[in-house]
């Protein structure tokens, strides 16, 4: 991948960095970029394990309006938008797999404000590539491929040992190393959560007719089946099934897989072509018991892995980025130590309630909709119908789904820090 071109081994003698970030995904890189943009005097290093020339993994993300405003503020949105598909319409249905006609209960017309798309679909590859280029240009030091092997928290700095044998010192170490965060374990931070016993099958399909920017979410008995529009006549599917069934489905021959797919997808977009190898990801809810320790903070999936039902994983991660960047920059401008617990506690308080609420909401939604109990079906049909008929409720639902709920950090309001 392009982002490794400018990487460098750790120099012999390193000055103490202000912030070292473990993990060069969209969370780690966006945080690094946000810090350097607001405080050019801060030294920021990102350590990432991705080797040069790694093959993109095909993940796609829905960037909500608030996340888009942050990327605009950070000067990377144009590069991302060039490869993004706006979602202009969203349809949510609830039906049994074989119901002939799918009743449409909830239609979002997409815009949170006039003319503003509900979200943009973008590949992980395009997003990370754009942010990495801006971060490099913005003076972020990249160390890759390498990873954090361990760290020791001292009174005035945290010393960070890398797998390559090199070491770094920093005021603050941020773990943005994903849902199975190794640094979170090293810091001794426990998680709470549970396994859904479900997997999400992710696959890209091409279709005969254009999607017109419409996203669809069908609540099937086994769980949500989401069709998310990509650029061109392509869509990304997130298809939830019981784990054993998901494992079986992804191992089917291409023709059998396509048959199973068509039962669920329908024929409204014409003939379908499977464009990549379907893969199954186990779904679970993981929440870190605390987000900070002295000189240590969790961000993104390392702090919270949630069910992808509402497409909120990336947007929660972006909220972490915006809140942590604002907390660190304000401390820096006051001459305070950004690794100090009295500074980091602000970030934790800011993010924990919101994260917990979102985790519980998506969990309840999933439990409600991954169930074929007739009573529950009536309840949720009525529930979604009500949401559709009550404009204020629907508006709140859209705003929340667009990531605009709660006390927003400045970057998510499209303002500088």
């Amino acid at each position, binding site marked *: 991948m392009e982002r490794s071109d400018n990487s460098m081994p750790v120099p012999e003698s390193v000055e103490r960095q202000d912030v070292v970030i473990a993990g060069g995904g969209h969370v780690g890189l966006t945080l690094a970029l946000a810090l350097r943009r607001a*405080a*050019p*005097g801060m030294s920021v290093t990102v350590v990432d394990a991705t080797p040069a020339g790694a093959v993109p993994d095909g993940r796609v993300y829905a960037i909500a309006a608030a996340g888009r405003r942050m990327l605009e503020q950070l000067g990377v949105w144009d590069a991302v938008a060039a490869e993004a598909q706006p979602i202009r319409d969203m349809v949510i249905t609830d039906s049994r797999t074989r119901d002939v006609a799918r009743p449409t209960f909830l239609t979002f017309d997409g815009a949170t404000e006039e003319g503003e798309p509900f979200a943009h679909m973008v590949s992980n590859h395009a997003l990370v590539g754009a942010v990495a280029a801006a971060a490099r240009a913005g003076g972020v030091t990249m160390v890759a491929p390498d990873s954090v092997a361990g760290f020791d928290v001292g*009174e*005035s700095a945290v010393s960070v040992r890398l797998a390559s044998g090199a070491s770094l010192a920093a005021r603050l170490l941020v773990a943005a190393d994903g849902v199975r965060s190794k640094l979170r374990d090293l810091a001794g931070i426990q998680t709470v959560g549970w396994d859904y016993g479900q997997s999400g099958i992710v696959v890209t399909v091409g279709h005969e007719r254009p999607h017109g920017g419409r996203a669809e979410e069908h609540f099937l008995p086994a769980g949500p089946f989401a069709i998310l529009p990509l650029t061109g006549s392509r869509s990304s599917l997130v298809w939830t099934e019981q784990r054993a069934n998901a494992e079986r489905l992804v191992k089917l021959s291409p023709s059998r897989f396509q048959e199973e797919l068509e039962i669920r997808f329908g024929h409204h977009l014409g003939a379908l072509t499977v464009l990549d190898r379907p893969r199954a990801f186990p779904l679970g809810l993981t929440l870190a018991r605390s987000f900070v320790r*002295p000189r240590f903070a969790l961000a993104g999936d390392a702090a919270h892995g949630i069910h992808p039902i509402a497409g909120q994983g990336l947007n929660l991660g972006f909220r972490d980025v915006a809140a942590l960047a604002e907390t660190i920059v*304000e*401390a*820096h*401008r*006051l*001459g*305070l130590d950004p690794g*100090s*617990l*009295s*500074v980091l*506690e*602000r970030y934790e*308080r800011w993010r924990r309630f919101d994260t917990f609420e979102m985790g519980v909401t998506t969990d309840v939604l999933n439990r409600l909709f991954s169930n074929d109990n007739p009573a529950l079906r009536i309840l949720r049909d009525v529930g979604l119908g009500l949401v559709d008929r009550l404009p204020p409720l629907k508006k709140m639902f859209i705003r929340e789904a667009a990531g605009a709920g709660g006390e927003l950090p400045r970057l998510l309001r499209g303002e500088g820090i």
Partner: protein
Amino acid sequence: MSHAPSLDPDEIARFSTMARDWWDPAGPLAPLHRLNPTRLAWLRDRIADHFGRDTKSERPLAGLRILDIGCGGGLVTEPLARMGATVTGIDPASDNIVVARHHAEAEGLAIDYRAETAEALAAAGETFDVVLILEVVEHVTDVAAFVATAGSLVRPGGLLLASTINRTLKAWALAIVGAEYVLRWLPRGTHSYDKLVTPNELAAALVSADLDVTAETGVMYVPLAGRWRLTGDMDVNYMMAAKRPA
């Protein structure tokens, strides 16, 4: 920067314990650490307003000479230096000055720390762009005389900033009973009620010292949020800014 006088190993051990106490955000001075971001932001904003500085700059106090009276271990002195100011920190307790010097040295900060009184500095005729008296007036015997001395250290056109606790029943309940006895935030006996100073008394002392009060604010602790915030209510903790006419 001058180094601490030679010390025996026992003294050094005692100082390093004290330094940890001063600088541990979860230690005995946790309330000061928690108060610091809110307090520093208000102080910086007043200085930036007065001298026309940009609060979003990384060194908004560059070029300003600041005196921190009663600097303790340097909890405010160090951030001021990082914001670009040339800072002198004085404290009559020489233990505090040793701790502060060691810590600043470890942080690579050049701060002029002196175990000296404000009276001695005033007698030497020194003046500063900004003088800070934070959590000090509630510990002096003669508030008017002390404020007059601190005021004389402000150059014409300069600024004096004070922070203290009001003498009200609410302050007694929250700052003494609450902080010292219930929460055990501060050692018992840190404050005595009759030494607390009301905003009117402080303002009167400032005016007598030929200073004009330019801003004031209350500061309150919000237990549910676990942080301090500014408030119009000056019944407990409050801060005041005053300028010396040019």
